[in-house]
């Protein structure tokens, strides 16, 4: 069940555990994009996501000796999500609004948003959908957001999500369905024109 990539991870982890920073940095380079994306979707702003990612990798290095038998990716993503939960809690305590990062979004940072075949109208629609989903995601509770981000944005299986969030697969199923339903209902009430049901009236 372990892929060649996981076996390679195991080898690098052994080196990193003995204090080899270069080996650990191989793992960083391999997983930093996914870690950053998860943090970005959970926090909703790029600066917070960068801080969370850096903090998570430092924690991972410190706790590497606790990693026994488990695969690196779900273990790392668990540290990332927990770090983001902490940041969100701190923000909630300080009662500050999350940075309005989506407004000044740099289009160049979103390469898949645009392609040569799309008309300007299609590009505009994609932008609107992206903004609507980002808004809706931030309306969810952190727990619901995490499960929907890991499943539908990051493409993890129920079993992997269960490992990352440390909850049973049954809980993943019910939490994911509730998160999707809430997000759907948010879009229905705020952006009804984006959903197919609108065309059927």
């Amino acid at each position: 069940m372990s892929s060649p990539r996981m076996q390679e991870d195991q080898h690098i982890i052994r080196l990193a555990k003995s204090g080899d920073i270069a080996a650990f940095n191989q793992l960083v380079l391999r997983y930093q994009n996914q870690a950053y994306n998860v943090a970005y979707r959970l926090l909703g702003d790029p600066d917070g996501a960068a801080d969370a990612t850096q903090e998570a990798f430092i924690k991972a290095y410190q706790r590497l000796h606790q990693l026994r038998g488990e695969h690196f990716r779900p273990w790392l993503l668990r540290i990332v999500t927990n770090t983001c939960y902490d940041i969100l809690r701190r923000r909630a305590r300080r009662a500050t609004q999350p940075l309005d990062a989506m407004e000044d979004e740099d289009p160049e940072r979103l390469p898949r948003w645009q392609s040569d075949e799309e008309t300007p109208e299609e590009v505009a629609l994609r932008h609107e959908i992206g903004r609507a989903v980002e808004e809706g995601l931030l309306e969810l509770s952190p727990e619901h957001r995490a499960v929907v981000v890991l499943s539908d944005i990051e493409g993890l299986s129920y079993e992997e999500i269960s490992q990352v969030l440390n909850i049973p697969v049954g809980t993943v199923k019910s939490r994911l369905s509730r998160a999707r339903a809430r997000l759907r209902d948010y879009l229905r009430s705020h952006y009804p024109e984006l959903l197919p049901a609108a065309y059927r009236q």
Partner: protein
Amino acid sequence: MGVLRSRHVSDKELSLFIDHRLNSRDRQRVEAHLQECASCRRAYEDMQATVLFLQQMPRVAAPRAFTLTEADVQSVRKPSRSRPVWLRWAAAVVAVTFLFVIGLDLFLATSPHEFDQALLHTPAETRAIITKEVAKVVQVTPAPSQESAKALLREESAPASATVESAPPAQALSSSSIRGPVKVTPEKAPVGDSAAAPSPPLVDWLKWVEVGLAGLLLVILLLYIFWP
């Protein structure tokens, strides 16, 4: 306007249906119901669109490399930085043993001390009775091993120890406690001013254990605080 409508599909069933995680019986039921129920169909289509939107969300590129530098590691030190398990256990065991020994010492030390006080303020007749009782207590306390008895004797005058060296341990104990080479059986020993020996050897021995444990506790405490 069908009179017999099948049960509506829950959001959980829709979610599992979208992910192809329903068993074939449930899947067929959901499919059949979606054919006939417009509101469930809308709920399904909107949820499917929501999932599709999520799947099409753009990936963002990491703004920089998050590799750790030597400087990060300097402040972080080695991976296994936290205090080892053995240190926590050692601290717990030593602390508990220390408290136990202090408790034992207090328990043993109180009785002779009370008798000492009593002896100072009682007439001679009662003093004799009390000394007999003390003697019993002294006898009841376990005798140290032969080696330690010999060691005690060696601290006294050399000729005395030479004469007692071959004596059985019980005699060695009584002679050492009355500080002289007089050979007496334990039954006769209590009568006399030396009967109320200030503290039985066990209590002395316990004091050294306490000092040792206190030292050990201090070392572990320092290790705990200044663990690298």
